């Protein structure tokens, strides 16, 4: 069901908390993890950090790709939703900070927009979520 999984990250702790869930959905489906970072001014060097993360995911055997979207004229939610439409994504995974899901520099409103714009379901992972190994239980692989 989740062949194309988008993980929206801004390298925050909240976004990081959602990664294991995105990762497991992809591992189970044998699909693709699209790591999307949306920012207009990459002052903190977050893009490089996220790129490295994508590299590590690939090394771990995950079919992961990196996408930088947005820009000064585009709101993060729009950019992420547009990507989801273009990729025919099955789910967008985001972290939350307890006061609303976060997918960029703005708290709350971005997700409100994303939930309105997204062409697919959105998996919101709260920060206090306890990660359980085998959350999406991997079944015997019947496809090679």
């Amino acid at each position, binding site marked *: 069901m989740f062949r194309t999984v988008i993980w929206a990250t801004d390298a925050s702790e909240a976004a990081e908390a959602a990664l294991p869930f995105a990762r497991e959905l992809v591992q189970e489906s044998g699909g693709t993890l699209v790591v999307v970072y949306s920012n207009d001014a990459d002052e903190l060097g977050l893009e490089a950090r996220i790129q490295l993360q994508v590299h590590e995911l690939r090394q771990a055997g995950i079919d992961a790709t990196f996408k930088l979207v947005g820009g000064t004229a585009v709101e993060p939610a729009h950019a992420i939703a547009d990507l989801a439409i273009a990729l025919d994504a099955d789910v967008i995974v985001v972290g*939350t900070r307890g006061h609303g899901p976060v997918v960029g520099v703005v708290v709350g409103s971005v997700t409100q927009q994303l939930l309105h714009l997204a062409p697919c379901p959105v998996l919101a992972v709260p920060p206090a979520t306890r990660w359980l190994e085998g959350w*999406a*239980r991997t079944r015997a692989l019947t496809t090679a």
Partner: protein
Amino acid sequence: MKRILIATDGSPSALQAVEFGLELAAEQEAEAVFVHVALRTEVLPVSGFAMGPVTVPHEVTDHDMEPLHEAVERANEMGLRAGSRLLVGEPAKKIVEYADSIDADLIVVGSRGHGAISSALLGSVSRGILHAAKRPVLIVRETRQPVEAAA
């Protein structure tokens, strides 16, 4: 995933959540549990003079069970086992508490429910669940078309 909690109030948005949640349960070979929350009290319209609205305790009726019956029926059609539970009280709070009590791996909700203002981007119950939950919440968009049975 072993257990997927699916919230439904019978609204079109909730029915999308039911469909998606059941597809997911089938794929994960997980147990689906439906939950619906009836309000503890209801406000009666009062036409008499010098009287404010009257709040009375809500009595659980078949009407309250209907969204759950529909959902379980749908699950059975798909050959899935599903449980259901009617709760009473503040919806978001009750759903989150119940999810904790059954240790649900995931809460599936529609983006809107009954009574949501149409211009609202996210129903108040869905938003409340998002804020209170300590486990992943899958928000299913209302506009999503049910997936056709495919290979």
